[in-house]
């Protein structure tokens, strides 16, 4: 007799929503920090976590840290819950699209008025 796993018919989408939104937010923060570091010498100096790599080290480390913290916080908040996934997904894709724009140098320069 083959063993069959029982799978809930409508499993909660909260954990997936948390992962998706946090990922979009983390990517967005990467773009924000990249533009901010490019626009301000003092901010770039603050992001210089590892001198041979320069401000890129701080931009990426901070963005990855924010992504993971956001993921954990949302995962705890939305554990076992089902949300309107379409709205969460729309926000996540908005963040992701903005991150692509902000990491595109001509757009970043435009934001900085160059």
């Amino acid at each position, binding site marked *: 007799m083959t063993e069959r796993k029982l799978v809930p018919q409508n499993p909660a989408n909260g954990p*997936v929503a948390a992962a998706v939104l946090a990922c979009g937010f983390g990517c967005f923060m990467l773009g924000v920090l990249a533009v901010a570091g490019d626009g301000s010498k003092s901010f770039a100096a603050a992001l210089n976590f590892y001198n041979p790599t320069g401000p890129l080290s701080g931009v990426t480390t901070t963005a990855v840290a924010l992504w993971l913290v956001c993921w954990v916080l949302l995962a705890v908040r939305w554990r076992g819950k089902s949300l309107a996934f379409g709205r969460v997904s729309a926000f996540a894709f908005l963040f992701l699209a903005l991150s692509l724009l902000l990491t595109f140098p001509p757009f970043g320069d435009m934001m900085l008025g160059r």
Partner: protein
Amino acid sequence: MEVTQRELVTMIHGMLFGGFFLLALFGVLVLLLDGNSPDATPNQTVPRWQNIYFIAMVIVGWAAVLSGAYIIYPWYRAVAPPGVDLVLYPKFLLTAHSSTAGWHNFGMEWKEHVAWIAPMSSTMVVWVLMKQRAAWNAHRSVRSTVLGFAAIAFLAAAIAGGWGAMIDKKAPVEGGAAIQLMGSTR
């Protein structure tokens, strides 16, 4: 047949980590497209080989960005002392002439940031595929969103990899000890 130490590390970064990551990500995209089709049969358990494949893909993705940012980028952006031959200082070699400055000011500035979107997004995609398979099977919107993030991850990796290859062709990262790969025939 020799390469310098920096050339070898750059090859490992771009061709091994970056190349494998792009190939693997394309495979995941095909898998997700197949799973997103209306006539797909839900697969409740992930085959072991797929788990190994997913984890390997995420590891090479992070290895690509970390080796790029913390090993190769410092060689690329090292400040050239006055009067020195710029061949060992690719950033300064490129920005020394207006005809090549765009390779750094546009290409490298874009690549160094957009690259990170790829491992972040693919880590999330793999986590959903491995740990949230029931939700992925049950909700079409989840499958579409995950597919979208995988596609953006692929785009970001392709931009970063493409610019990396072109910049390294224009101003290669060179230097360090010579490593003999194979004996010369003559």
